[in-house]
């Protein structure tokens, strides 16, 4: 069920994204003008998060939350000299509250002391939510397509807290797009694993 919907979301995003990008590219494309983007050193991006995929670890279901991504621009002109691209290093923190654990994992609501000093659980309940904190570190590669639009890819890794423990996942991947309200303020959407986000970026 969730995989099917995930594919629909992805396809929808790609189609709509391509449509918008193609339409705008005909008008005011900046992709072939290296360096023709806002001159900034830091992108501050508060956002809303949604986790549509099961997160790393044992959490499960859908997650909702808030987060912040800060990206330091490392290269104003990125890896492709003929294109308007740039590279940054992004650090984030995201809090998401998921539906519960994957599988039958519940919590003990009542222990009774048993022989040999072993506490015996006599009453359980399902877990109605699980809190996650992600601390992603990503390489952000931006392509400034148009005066109003830019896109980026973000491979990286993340630390995360779940079940009171700090864990590590060596793979996170995001793809995103910005709609430029002004030169320095954008609506920013990000899809990927483990979270999707929608927020506002301030190019400082």
């Amino acid at each position, binding site marked *: *069920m*969730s995989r099917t*919907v995930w594919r*629909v*979301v992805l396809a*929808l*995003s790609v189609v*709509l*994204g391509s*449509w*918008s990008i193609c*339409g*705008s590219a005909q008008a005011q494309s900046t992709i072939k003008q290296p360096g023709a983007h806002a001159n900034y050193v830091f992108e501050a991006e508060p956002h809303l998060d*949604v986790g*549509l995929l099961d997160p790393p*670890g*044992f959490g*499960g*279901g*859908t997650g*909702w939350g808030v987060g912040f991504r800060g990206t330091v621009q490392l290269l104003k002109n990125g890896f492709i000299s003929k294109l308007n691209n740039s590279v940054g290093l992004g650090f984030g923190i995201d809090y998401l509250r998921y*539906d*519960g*654990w*994957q*599988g*039958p*994992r*519940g*919590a*003990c609501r009542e*222990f*009774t002391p*048993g*022989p*040999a*000093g*072993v*506490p*015996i*659980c*006599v*009453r*359980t*309940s*399902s877990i109605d939510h699980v809190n996650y904190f992600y601390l992603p570190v990503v390489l952000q590669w931006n392509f400034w397509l148009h005066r*109003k639009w830019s896109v980026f890819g973000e491979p990286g890794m993340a630390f995360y807290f779940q*079940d*009171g*423990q700090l864990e590590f996942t060596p793979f996170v991947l995001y793809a995103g797009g910005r*709609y430029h309200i002004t030169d320095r303020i954008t*609506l920013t*959407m990000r899809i990927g694993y483990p979270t*999707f986000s*929608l927020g506002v970026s301030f190019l400082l």
Partner: protein
Amino acid sequence: MRRLFSALSLSLVLVSLALSGCNDHDTCDPGRPCDCSGGHDCYIGCEGDGCSPRCFQMEHCGAVCEDDCNSQCFDVQECSTSCGDDCDVSCHNAVACGAICGDRCNFDCHDMDRCGVHAGNGSEINVHNYSRTEIECTGTCHVRSAAPDACDDQHGCSVKCLGSAALTMCGDGSVACGACP
């Protein structure tokens, strides 16, 4: 352009809302294996008779089930089982294992620092390779111990007969509440 962006965002939000209503978590049902492994704590509840919960490779894990429950626990720091009548409880390779079970309980605990069980009438208890074992029987029960060969205080093993059945030392080194089998 704004319409397009709004449509895209709205679509994603709607799909997200739809997904949030489809939380198809697994549950433990009678007659089907139900495992919990990895992580720190897991306590499995299973309603109905004939459940088969299994815990492994965790810190704390336990099962709460009803009659005819087959509970297994291994490679866990602390195991617990609470069940009704006619249960099979098996624990091994852990630090501590405890159970509260009803009549005709089969409790098997080995390669463990501490084994403890509070069992009902007609129960069979087997323990070996342990540091300490405490057994409480509310009716008749039979306790076998291997390595150490005998279940007595000297070997860190105690049996309490909480009901009217008397503690009996059997000829083969086993112990019973009530008559030896």
